[in-house]
Each structure stands twice: as C-alpha cells, then as structure tokens.
C-alpha cells in the first residue's frame, strides 16, 4: 500500500453563517494514526465529513496526494472509507451480504477476501452472526460488521467518527486498535475522533486539539510521551482551558 498524503489548505466550513471550521491547514503523511479531540461542536465530525466529501468546504481545498479532492473524484473516494458512529447498512441484509456488497462497491473481488473474512469475523465474534440480518443485531454488533467491511476493504484512508463510543465490547475495541495499527504500519492513514482523553493520549501518532473550528494544538507522539499525566501541563488541563474561556 502506498498510502495517501492528505493536505488541508485553509479549509473553512460554515453552516447557516456559523463557522464549524475556520481556516484550517494541516498536512498528514501516510502511515499515521491521528486523533482529533475537542469540545462538543468544535468541528471534529465536520472535518471528517470534509475529508470524505459528504460536506464541501466553504473555502479552501482538500488535497489527496496533491490532487484536488472533489465529490466527483470517485477514484479518490475509493481510497477512503468513512465509518460514522452509527454505520449505514440495510437491515434485511446479513453481515456477509453487507461485506460482499461493500467490497464490490470498492471494486474488490469478494472471493479473494474469503480467508480474511473468516479470520476477521472470528476475531470480532461475528461468525455465529454472519447470516443474521443486521437489523436484528445490537449497536455494537452492527459496528463490528461495518468494521469488518472496513478491514477487508482496507482503504488507504480510514475515517472513524467516535469509534470508541460506538458500542464495541472490550474485544472489539482491542481489535479496532490492532487493525488500525496494522493498517497504519502498512501505510494507511487512520483519522478518528474521540472525547476520551486517555485513548487519544495513548493511541495516536498525532493528536490534534480542535477548538471552535481551529487546530489549537497538534502534538506528536514525542510531545504526548513527554506530557505529564496531571498538573497544569497535562492534556486534560489544557482542554479545560478552552471550556473556561467559553463559560
């Protein structure tokens, strides 16, 4: 996998006059796990939606490998998969049918994925549920089905919205981390949003703190390792400062 270089060039997004993203610029090299953290309404999900073309920037550009990313660039859209916290799938289809359909939509040959599918389904405890309509599964199980599809399609860019608040059980959460690390090691970029500081601090090569539509801090792995767990310089304390400004 070559991976994809992502560049946000002065991206702004307005909804009905209110700014969700405000002049954001960032370059993300392939093979990284990037955590987005911020207060509610800070612009985390909007950023993921901009990166997946669901939302179009009001200003600025998103570039993948130096190419302007637009909604009609299906070739570029096939290189990413956006997994919302409540994945979209048809209730009457089984997990197998869903994964098969998604693989075809991403132009993967389903039969070639068979061994991987059985392995991933086994790791996510989905084997007994493989033929159950997803409408009968719990929220966490539905998320596991969507995660399985993501892992099997294995795009170059993984966009995950609140994956750690998606109803996954401990085994699912552990596998999510393993899959993400493996994908990043292979050259993919994993960008996820979260509200859980402990996860963001430990499970990221870069941590971007968003506040009122702007990147306030971008920490590297080395910065995070050097950061104290408590005190005024801790990540928790820095995030609290943003809240104090607002209240």
């Amino acid at each position, binding site marked *: 996998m070559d991976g994809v270089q992502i560049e946000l060039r002065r991206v702004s997004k307005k909804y009905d006059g209110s700014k969700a993203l405000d002049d954001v610029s960032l370059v993300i090299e392939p093979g990284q796990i990037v955590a987005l953290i911020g207060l509610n309404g800070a612009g985390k999900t909007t950023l993921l*939606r901009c990166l997946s073309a669901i939302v179009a*920037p009001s200003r600025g550009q998103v570039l993948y490998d130096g190419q302007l990313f637009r909604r009609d660039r299906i070739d570029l859209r096939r290189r990413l998969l956006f997994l919302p916290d409540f994945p979209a799938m048809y209730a009457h289809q089984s997990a197998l049918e869903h994964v098969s359909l998604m693989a075809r939509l991403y132009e993967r040959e389903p039969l070639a994925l068979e061994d991987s599918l059985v392995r991933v389904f086994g790791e996510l405890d989905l084997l007994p549920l493989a033929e159950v309509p997803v409408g009968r*599964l719990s929220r966490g199980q539905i998320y596991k089905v969507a995660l399985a599809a993501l892992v099997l399609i294995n795009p170059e860019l993984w966009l995950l919205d609140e994956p750690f608040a998606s109803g996954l059980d401990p085994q699912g959460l552990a596998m999510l981390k393993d899959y993400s690390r493996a994908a990043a090691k292979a050259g993919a970029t994993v960008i996820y949003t979260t509200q859980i500081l402990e996860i963001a601090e430990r499970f990221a090569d870069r941590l971007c703190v968003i506040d009122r539509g702007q990147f306030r801090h971008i920490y590297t792995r080395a910065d995070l390792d050097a950061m104290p767990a408590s005190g005024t310089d801790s990540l928790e304390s820095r995030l609290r400062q943003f809240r104090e400004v607002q209240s």
Partner: protein
Amino acid sequence: MKLTPDRKAWKHWRRAVSRRIKASPDLRRERRRARPRITKHYSAGSFRVLVPLVILIAVLNNGPITALANALLLWTTLITFVRAQQIAANTHDPNQLWIWYGWPVTDDSVFAHQRGYVLRAAVWLVVDWLVFGLAVAWKTEAVLLAFAAPVIAFTQGVTALALAVWLARWRPQFPYVWVTTPLTLLVFFSFKLETDHNTVTAWLNMVRNALHSATPAGWLLSGWHNIAQGHATGWWIFLGIGGIACAALVAGARAMRKVFNPDALFGYENTPEETVDNPLPASAASSPHPSHQSPESHPPQPTHRETAPVDLSLLRVRTEGVLATPPGRTLASRGPLEQAVTWFLTPRQRTLVDFMVPGGMSWNRRWLIAVALLGIVVIAGGTSSPNLRVLPALAALAFALPVLGGRWLGFEAMRTFQTQIGLTAYVPTGFGETSRLVLTINALYCILAFPFVLAVVWLGFAPAHAPFTWSLDYSVRGIGIVLAFQPVWLVSKFSTNTNDSSTGRLWFAGLVILIIAGLIIGVSLCVVAVMIESTSVALGCVGALALLTHAGLALYGWVWGRGWFDLIAKLK
C-alpha cells in the same frame, strides 16, 4: 398529559439565559459564532393560507363557479390522500415518534398529541370550502347558500378526514403521496382548461364525472348544487353523509388507537423471525434516532441459538456462496422481466443495482395489480357510467409505469438527531453512474410496459369510436412524458438528502430562477404534448421536454460533483 413545551417557562428561561450571556463578552462572542444568520425558516406549509385566498379571488373575479367547484372537488380528493399519508406517518412511522422513545409518557398521551396535529391541519380544508361557499353566496346574493356554506364546509372536512383515517388504517404503508402528484396536475388543468374544447378537456371531464359519481366529496357537491337550485334534498344529503362521516371518524380514531403501538415500532415487543424483512437502513429501521440507542436498549438481540458455536466448514461453504454470487442478483432473481433488464447492464451497474434496490423491484406484483385493475376498467366500461373506468385506468397506469421513478432504497437516508445523510454519501458511487442506471432501468421498464399501457389507454381513456391509432398515439406520448420527467424525479431524490436549498446561498437564488424558468417551459411543453392534435409536433415537444430535464439533471450533477452543497440535510 400535554406533550407540548411550557411556553411561559420557556420565556422565563430564555430571559435568564440572555441576561447571563449579555454579562459576559466571551459568551456574547461565542453566541454570535454559533447563531445562524437566519434564525426563522418558513416551511411550505406557511403558504397554505394562500389557497383560500386564491379561491376567494377566483370566485369574486367572475371565475366560472362550476369549474371552481370541480377544481375544489379534485383538491379535496388530493387532500384526502395527503392526510392519509400524514396520519399513517404520525402513527406508524418511527421517525415521527422517536421523540417519545424512552420518555415516561403513555401511549394515550402520544396518540392524543399526534391526533391534535392531524385535526389542526384538517381545519384548512374546512376553511377552503367555507370561503368558497360564502364567496359564491355573496356573489350570487343567495341567502340559502350562505346558510349552506358552513354545513358543506364542515361535512366536506369531516368526510375527507374520515376517509383519510380509514385509508391510513387500512394500508398505513401505502404510498398515498404517489396519488397526489397526478391529482395536483389535474387540479391545475381542471382550473385552467375549462373553456377549451379538445380531447384533454373531454378526458378531464371524464375524470371529474367519475369523481362526482364515486366519491363522497362529489356527492356532497351534488347536494350543494341541489340547494343552489332551491331543492331541499341537498340538506338531506348533507345530513346523511355528514352523519355517517362523523360516526366513521369516531370509529376510525378508535380503530387507529387500537393499532397504535409505539412499543412494537421500536421493537420492545418480541417479533417472530419471519417478520424481520424491513429493507430500510439498519439504524433507521431499528431506531430512527440512534443517539437514543444503546446496546442494552436495542431490543432484537440475536437469540442464544444464533450465538451458539457454528460449524466453520459449513460457514465457509455459505460464505463462498454469498461472495461468489454474481452482481445484479437482487434484480435478476425477482422475475423474468427483471432478468431481461439485467442483461442490458454492465457489471458495475449490476453492483450498483444491488446497492440501490437491495430488495428487488417487485415488478411482478405491480404488474399483477395493474392487470387486475385493467379487468376493472373493462367491467366499468360496460356499465351505465362508463366514465368510472377512468379511475381504475389511472391506478393501473400508476402501478404499471415508474411514474415517480419507482422505489430505490439507495436514496434512503441515515438519520441522526438533527440531520439526515443519504446512504449514497457513504459509498464511492457517482452522480452520473447512479443517474444513468436509474434512467436505463426505468426506460427499459417503460418499453416493456408499452403493450400494457396501450391496452389501458385503449380500454380506459379512448373516446367512443376513436380509431386504434388514437390510443397508440397517446400511449407513445404518455410514456414519452413519463420518461422525460424521470430526471426531475432523480434530482428531487438526490436533493432530499442535501442542503442545496439552504437559505443564504447566492448561487441558489440563480438556480431557483433557472428552475422556475425550466418548470414554466417544461409544463408548457407537457401541455402542448398532450393537447395538440399533430403527433409529430407532440413528439417534438416530448423530445424538447426530455432535453430540458436531462440538461437540468446534468447541471445538477455538475454542481453536485463540485461540492456546491453538502450531502447532509436537516431532518425531515
């Protein structure tokens, strides 16, 4: 229990919050950032008040009373179907009821709340008839009609509502809104073409006569005409139909209450395995408001049997079976018609079909219903009121043709608290390829349906002694118009899950002007295509209409691809 906000408390709290914000510059700045530029949005419903106003102006402006009464009759029929759709949605659609999900409110309170919505909306039809009745009485200086006005208004309103309630009770899932679009066009034509004497007017008269004879609204209108002519029997018609309608309304409300069961909608109740066949998006189908959903509260958990250890080798065989299934199976496996259509599709289009219509097209069932309706057309044509054949003929056409594009589930949306995002937004599918697929399938379907359409036009609409070529001519025109309007339907489906019509977009103002101009030209072309005697000119108009709508589709696809708007809409 009232399920509406306490406005008094709301006002107090609002003042308290404002005071706090005003005291802090930071909070004031933050509010400015978060507050939308336009805080008040007007819905299409705000313009409902214009209908009685138009009626008033039309009557006072020396409009032909009979034409207006007929238009109002069609309008009442249209509103009946709209109301049926509204009632079905208010009582059976989880999206309308999720807000009560998990709240400590009784089903009776929720039902009473939903009933209040319907009743308030239903008042408008009474106002329409009241304005019409009083305006006619004032214009004709007939005192009797002034007394009759509130009576006919009330009986028309109650009758329409009672019918709507029972329609919603009978088939809550039926897309009643499908009937409304052709009826809207009929109302327009009926109003505009009264004085013309051509084939279309004759055909419209057939529809109106059929509605006069076959609907309670038509019987009530006959009663009103009766009173206008000084006969007392009209009052008895009002009394009889009004009494029956009141009783039917009360009984209908009780019947609706009996089947009103939010617990079942949200899956609190156990359901047999066979009933789980809802092809809607998983989260939308199980809970329309996923943020209220938790793994613990999600009811249809897999049973112990399903989570028991599985035979891995058997699963491998099944997995291989699913993965090896060729694309396009959902369409091809449904019937010979669908299979024939699948032959014309590319491998990519077959994959898209699996995504866009995962449950298949159900064409066979639609055709069976259409054939049954054709039988009714034949029977009605042989009765003493041959005009009655028009109604089943219209219904047969609606079933046989993809008049409004058909049911493409891929256009469904995932709903969150405030927004909905179309399923197509989450997968790498393009506007062009999806549009081409839908247009191709619907065109092939129309071609396959042509012999049937010809039979319906010949048996249902052709004037007496008209040659067979007349039916052939109008069948081609009809199918041409249906095909020409497919891009319009497509744009509306794509547009539903976008914010393209959000206020505050300058480019959108330009687009609106283009759309209005296009609509005027399109409707004019459509009218000419139907009305003109010359077949070649009519087909030219159909061709021009198709060109116009396809150009509109291409333009919309262009702005879609360039991200002029978001694939995210406010929750509808």
